[in-house]
């Protein structure tokens, strides 16, 4: 047989062995070629009398298969034959179905080829990879590969498994066990796969193929369980078995509680499983394909694939790093300031294997900062996430000191002290006194202009902003801010650093508030506007969460600190000359902070009350009576209006950042908005929200409407009007440095 992506042999017993091995790739994916090969293999097995059965395995040490080829998938939107524009709607739908059904059809033919088929899994099988394995009659997995993982992660990027996963997995392990795996997309290990019944047995990796062959020989008449007469869904079938209705009903509610229905993939997965289980597998697979296509065509899916998969991967590989500068290996990095941020930064560096010097005014303070790492390590050991040995090694990499002598020899210094320009300037001077000429000075500031801070530096071209988010060990984003004089080489180095600590960098320019701090505040400000309009706090908070934001705007305000919000509000009023006495919102905030001492979470009381663990126990019960609540009901029309205000306000600020040159790459805009301040992920980020969820022209229309109704804060920059007029999108006007994501747009 002439196969491009599989190696092929037939042993003396007539057992064929197809080894999945896509040439030139480190990992197998289901390319169009691979699918064609599976068709050929199926035909050969079905028609060649010499062949008694088939074992499929992988030739890659990395595992079996990572699933569909998303790059290829995103480009195959066109189609063959007649151009889409010339098709009738019925023809178009039929063509879409045909294309979407290819893999389902292929795997179903494999499953019903009339001979036993087993799969030997030595490494990971995700998405389409697992779906291929599920279409085999039997699965053997390795018990000695800690990196082995199975899963259907499609939902995480806005898709649903489209190669039988939503149908075969529930038929194999029951709806109740299968639904969370498909809805959440979390991967699972070999032993879990065995206990759930996803695989038939676990053996050492050297024996998986032999075991699979053994099974094929012993089961010449193998069929999928669902092709046996009298097959019953394990755990019961909806509308047939008592209790199955409740499982479904509960699953629907639990999904809403998690996603508020914002993610079309998940709701379609529920429908797919619900409808599919009521019909035979062939009809079920057709249903799955229809929902797959329906999901794929949603703007959310396009946005999520582009941002959460493609852009995330690109940025995490340093796509926005200036070319032509050698990669920096860090032999020593100093962190100055052992407070919450500095302590966290020291931890992530040490975890990434980088020798770290943690400096504070006293050794004692520095040690306190190191305690942060000690606590995490201790917790991780107790939870089995790390070993004592690894934990000890991590802690050994952190040297504490009060002496700048120890900073000597560092490739990079991260200053992480209070937001005080003088203090920062002093530290820059002290550090540079001992640093080599090519060392980079980084400031972890969230608001202070880098160009200003760099004035204290002897080498402003080596000075850069490296803005971390709290808690450092959990937040995946780092915002890199180039000052006026920051060199490309320094930017490259800073990006190398962020990649070395396994975080995702975005690159922005030096304007007040940079990118993230500036936009982040708009969400809470809009919440405050609603409060001053007399909208009941519960409405503001619920609508905020239901719009896809991680917290309500008032809860975010509490986290930031209401005193801070008050300070910023007063400062901006002073700057614009607004009469603060007339601003009921500011008056209320001042009363909360100065009269009631409700300054936010840090005080255990703000808009919310907090328990001892710092978790909100509920909105302050007196809040409603202290406010002049005018709107205490929220019918769907109002909810839609408030949702749009909260999201559009943020996106308008992002658009302004692009117009002003704060940020120049649409990927940075999207990923930054999701990772830094939690902008509703189903939108793909603020840029994609404008590009795809609204469309630039419709977005401008909506923002104009809101501006007319609520004020200039919704006014879009002229740039956005120009984009709308020209039919441009963020991804066409601010294209990524690489071209891959651009093609996906």
């Amino acid at each position: 047989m002439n196969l491009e992506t599989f190696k092929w042999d037939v042993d003396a017993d007539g057992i064929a062995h197809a080894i999945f091995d896509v040439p030139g790739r480190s990992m197998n994916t289901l390319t169009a070629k691979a699918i064609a090969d599976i068709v050929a293999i199926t035909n050969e097995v079905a028609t060649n009398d010499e062949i008694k059965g088939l074992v499929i395995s992988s030739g890659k040490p990395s595992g079996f298969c990572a699933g569909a080829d998303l790059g290829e998938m995103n480009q195959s939107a066109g189609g063959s034959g007649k151009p889409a524009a010339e098709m009738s709607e019925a023809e178009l739908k039929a063509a879409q179905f045909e294309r979407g059904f290819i893999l389902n059809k292929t795997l179903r033919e494999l499953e019903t080829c009339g001979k036993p088929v087993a799969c030997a899994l030595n490494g990971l099988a995700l998405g389409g990879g697992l779906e291929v394995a599920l279409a085999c009659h039997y699965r053997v997995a390795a018990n000695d590969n800690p990196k082995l993982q199975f899963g259907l992660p499609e939902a995480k990027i806005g898709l649903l498994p489209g190669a039988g996963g939503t149908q075969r997995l529930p038929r194999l392990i029951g709806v109740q066990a299968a639904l969370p795996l498909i809805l959440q997309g979390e991967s699972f290990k070999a032993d879990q796969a065995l206990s759930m019944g996803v695989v038939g047995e676990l053996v050492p990796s050297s024996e998986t193929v032999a075991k699979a062959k053994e099974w094929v020989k012993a089961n010449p008449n193998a069929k999928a369980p669902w092709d046996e007469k009298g097959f019953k869904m394990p755990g019961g079938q909806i509308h047939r078995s008592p209790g199955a209705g409740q499982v479904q009903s509960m699953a629907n509610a639990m999904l809403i509680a998690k996603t508020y229905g914002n993610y079309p993939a998940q709701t379609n997965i529920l429908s797919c499983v619900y409808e599919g289980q009521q019909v035979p597998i062939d009809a079920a697979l057709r249903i799955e394909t229809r929902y797959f296509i329906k999901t794929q065509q949603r703007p959310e899916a396009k946005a999520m694939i582009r941002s959460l998969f493609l852009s995330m991967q690109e940025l995490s590989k340093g796509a926005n790093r200036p070319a032509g500068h050698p990669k920096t290996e860090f032999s020593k990095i100093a962190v100055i300031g052992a407070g919450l941020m500095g302590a966290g930064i020291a931890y992530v560096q040490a975890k990434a294997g980088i020798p770290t010097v943690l400096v504070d005014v006293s050794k004692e303070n520095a040690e306190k900062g190191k305690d942060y790492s000690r606590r995490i390590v201790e917790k991780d050991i107790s939870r089995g996430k790390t070993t004592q040995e690894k934990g000890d090694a991590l802690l050994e990499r952190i040297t504490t000191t009060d002496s700048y002598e120890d900073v000597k020899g560092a490739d990079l210094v991260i200053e992480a002290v209070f937001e005080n320009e003088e203090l920062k300037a002093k530290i820059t001077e002290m550090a540079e006194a001992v640093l080599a000429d090519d060392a980079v000075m980084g400031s972890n500031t969230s608001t202070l202009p880098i160009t200003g801070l760099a004035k204290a530096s002897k080498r402003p071209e080596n000075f850069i902003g490296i803005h971390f988010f709290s808690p450092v060990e959990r937040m995946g984003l780092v915002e890199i801010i180039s000052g006026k004089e920051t060199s490309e080489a320094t930017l490259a180095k800073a990006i190398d650093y962020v990649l070395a600590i396994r975080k995702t960098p975005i690159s922005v320019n030096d304007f007040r508030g940079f990118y993230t701090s500036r936009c982040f505040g708009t969400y809470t400000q809009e919440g405050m506007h609603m409060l001053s309009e007399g909208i009941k706090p519960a409405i503001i908070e619920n609508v905020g969460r239901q719009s896809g934001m991680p917290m309500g705007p008032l809860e975010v305000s509490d986290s930031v600190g209401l005193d801070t919000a008050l300070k910023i509000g007063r400062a901006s009023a002073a700057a614009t000359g607004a009469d603060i006495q007339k601003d009921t919102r500011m008056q209320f905030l001042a009363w909360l902070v100065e009269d009631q001492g409700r300054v936010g979470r840090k005080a255990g009381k703000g808009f919310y009350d907090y328990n001892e663990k710092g978790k909100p126990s509920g909105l302050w019960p007196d809040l409603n009576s202290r406010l002049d609540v005018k709107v205490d009901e929220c019918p769907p029309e109002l909810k839609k209006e408030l949702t749009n205000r909260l999201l559009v306000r943020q996106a308008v600020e992002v658009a302004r950042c692009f117009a002003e040159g704060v940020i120049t790459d649409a990927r940075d805009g999207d990923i930054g908005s999701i990772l830094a301040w939690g902008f509703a992920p189903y939108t793909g980020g603020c840029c994609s929200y404008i590009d795809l969820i609204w469309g630039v022209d419709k977005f401008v229309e909506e923002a104009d409407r809101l501006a007319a109704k609520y004020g200039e804060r919704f006014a879009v920059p002229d740039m956005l009007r120009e984009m709308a007029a020209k039919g441009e999108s963020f991804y066409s006007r601010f294209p990524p440095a690489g071209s891959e994501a651009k093609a996906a747009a």
Partner: protein
Amino acid sequence: MADAYIYDAVRTPRGKGKASGSLHEITSLSLATQTLEAIRDRNELDTSYVDDVILGCVTPIGEQGSDIARVAALNAEYAETTAGVQVDRFCASGLEACNMAAAKVMVGEADMAIGGGVEAMSRVPMGANGGAWSTDPSVAIKTYFAPQGVGADTIATKWGFSRDDVDAYAVESQKRAAKAWEEGRFAKSIIPVKDQMGGIILDHDEHMRPSADMQSLAALQPSFAGMGAMGFDEVIKQRYPELEAINHVHHAGNSSGIVDGASAVLFGSKEMGEKHDLKPRARIRAMASIGSEPGIMLTGPSYVTEKALKKAGMEVGDIDLYELNEAFAAVVLRMMQALDIPHDKINVNGGAIAMGHPLGATGGMILGTMVDELERTGKETALITLCVGAGMGTATIIERI
């Protein structure tokens, strides 16, 4: 259009809806049959004049499946020509069946028709017939499906009824039901249920707990907090973002009881009554059904009441007696609040919190209760209504002859 008159109304006592309940060993068919027999025998009916038997049944599967109305008519040895149809409007099925029977008389399709219902909840469990609304994500999600109890708790939260408020209502319901039984106020309608030998197996509502007080109710755990926490509170808050949290106040003691029972009401035209020498007891003034927001589910009664009043050209104050099925205490409290109905005009003889709610049968039962009560008190008009699954409401206005 012709008038429709109520000539008679009967109901079985309500048996506890579990295996230990007295009616558990009596088939649904037998319950329905016995009410039809009673209507025939009490009125010495020539059943060949009964055009149709319409029975509400909410769980029409198994022994209640396949048109139990026609089967019960056959089993009661009605004339072969008497048709039968089973209807389902969830909790208002029995009242809907009566409204349909009345409507058939009014338009002249039937000269005489029986409405009513049957539900042996101990034998065919509630929910056993499944359904798309609670399960199919394509509709459940966009219409905020949540279990009724969560909806009732949402009503309590939204309109400010505390646990004490709903418990106090429940205590009063028990008191009123006990007094009504004591004074024989249900005597006209109750037909004792007979067993396989013809002996009496139940002659009173056995779900009642007249001794219930605030203290004993306070000991009961809320029934829907768990489901709420698992996700349904968030579902409801999607539609009612004004609620920070749902206050789960309902429990077994302030919600309707699960019971077995059947009801039948005889409707006919004026001429038919005269021809058979039957005394009309009440006239149908107006009938209505309505839909309201399905997530909170149980706010239909006030809306359908307004609709029916409008059709009758009446106002809230024109009605002497209101009967609203006590599905949950908050449902009644909300209706009283929304329409400003004093407590002494509504559910004067207690209701389903005390006596139970045999889903498909209840509408016919409470319609009969109102006919009896108008006659007992000499009052003129009554409005009967129920909250209904998926946000509906059904109502009937009657006036005493």
